[in-house]
């Protein structure tokens, strides 16, 4: 049984069209993985900056995982929301990024996108806010079914992670 420590932070969101963003994150792992310590999901605070167009979250992630196989290597799934002045949360992007397989410090860019509706949907979205959301987010994890989606590029979420791998050498794994 090998172990993985993921320590780091969800650093910032950039290139989004609006400020006041927050993000829900969730760690997606395969069946043969277990979380030993740490929380595998969370919400960041709402962040905005009057001077620059990046939102800094610096949300900490500290996880300790154990596994009995390489398959199902952890991935971080993100949902970015925008909180408007009426307190409504609008979906601003889905994102999925694979945790690197080599130990050390990594800066990851998670490219986010959101579903794009028809012209009518977009007119409604422009005036009323809201927009389409994915009913079953499992669709995002399965590469076979992704082609059904029609999306629009949103912003980039940056993560800074440090990885520590343990006992993988005992099973002949070269990382």
């Amino acid at each position, binding site marked *: *049984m*090998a172990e993985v420590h993921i320590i780091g932070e969800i650093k910032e969101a950039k*290139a989004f069209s609006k400020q006041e963003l927050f993000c829900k994150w969730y760690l997606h792992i395969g069946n*043969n993985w*277990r979380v*030993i310590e740490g929380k595998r999901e969370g919400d960041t605070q709402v962040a905005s900056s009057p001077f620059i167009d990046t939102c800094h979250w610096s949300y900490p992630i500290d996880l300790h995982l*154990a*596994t*009995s*196989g*390489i*398959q*199902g*290597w952890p*991935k971080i799934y993100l949902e970015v929301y925008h909180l408007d002045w009426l307190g409504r949360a609008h979906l601003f992007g*889905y*994102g*999925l*990024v*694979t945790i*690197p*397989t*080599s130990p050390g410090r*990594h800066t990851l*860019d*998670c*490219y*986010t*996108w959101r579903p*794009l509706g028809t012209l009518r949907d977009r007119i409604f979205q422009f005036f009323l806010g809201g927009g389409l959301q994915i009913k079953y987010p499992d669709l995002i*994890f399965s*590469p*076979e079914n*992704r*082609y*059904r*989606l*029609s*999306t*629009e*590029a*949103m*912003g*980039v979420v940056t993560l800074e992670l440090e990885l520590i791998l343990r006992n993988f*050498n*005992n*099973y*002949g*794994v*070269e*990382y």
Partner: protein
Amino acid sequence: MTYLDCALNNLNIGGKTNVEDEYDFQKSIQKSYENPLIKHEWNTMYIMADFGEYFEDTWLKNEKVLCSLKFNEESKVLKVYPDFSNTRPYVLKIQSMEGKVFRYFIEHCSNLMPESIDSNQQTLIKKIREHSRNCVMNSLITETFRLPPKNKLFVFVFLEISAAKLFDYPDLFVEYSIHLPEGWSNCGEEALSGRTQLCRSSNNGGLVHFGHCVECFFEYNFINLENTEYSNKPYIYFEVLSKDSWDRYRTEGLCYTSLPISHSGMFHYNLKCFRFTTENPISEMRRFFIGDCHNYLDVSWVGVPDNLKENFLNKHDLSTTSTGELNVKMNIVHQSQEFLDENRLTGRKTKKIIFEQLSSSPLIKSVEQVIQEFKRARRELLEARKNV
């Protein structure tokens, strides 16, 4: 109760995970709402001196507190006030006794625990904690780590199609396909070809986001690994396509790369794409009005074609236009029993090119395999006889 007993009580031995003990922010905040006052139950002991005197056979008390000792049962905290003082005395003046000044010291006289016992306790507790942690881990994960069979190499590829930029049309998607040469087989659940979602570019520089993660799992038999097989690497081909509002599909760009299976680690690629064009205006008009999708026979032609028989690769007399870029990221992990033995011998990790590690002694490996097969056959024969 000694420190050791307390520590042993606090450990949870036997691998039970006590859910109630786990820190929960909601519960904790709820608790603090319910009990807004912090309760501290202190057992107090005062050390006092009596400076009284006799007044016609009756003793008049004049008690002064020299030192107070407070002990909290819950937090196991002992407060001594005022503090121990060995060098400078505390001074006590009593009003009724003019000119008399009392000086006193507070010393810590109880026997300290010898350091060796203390450190022994610490190591013991550490060991028990380690053991109980292992128990928890083993109860969480019951399966054993899957090892590849002998002479097999497992290659895990975590592919991520991140983004594309600088293409003509805004609505793009990517089709990818992995071509495996001989000796490689796909063991994963996911298909070797697929398609990302359709994505419209944002305003900043026509960047299109995909964030498409694929997990591939290949198996390679290196028993007959020879120098000639080095070039047979798996290739991945990408085709960027666009779809416009009238559902016209156009090929926007083609690119390829070999999967970096010779090294494990993380790899970033910025692939430059091109598309095929022809000189005659009709095909350009066709592309503009109707769209051209898959206007080629074999996608592997953009790299080294699969069925190349000539000695040289001729790509002369074909016009192409270079288009945008595709950002791809790959994580590679290898697993083989070969690394297991090596690690045990040397005890440290050395990064070498994978084929060097694998091709160390194919003859010995094949002999070993034959012996193992023979043993297995013999065992089966014996078992079969037993039944007869």
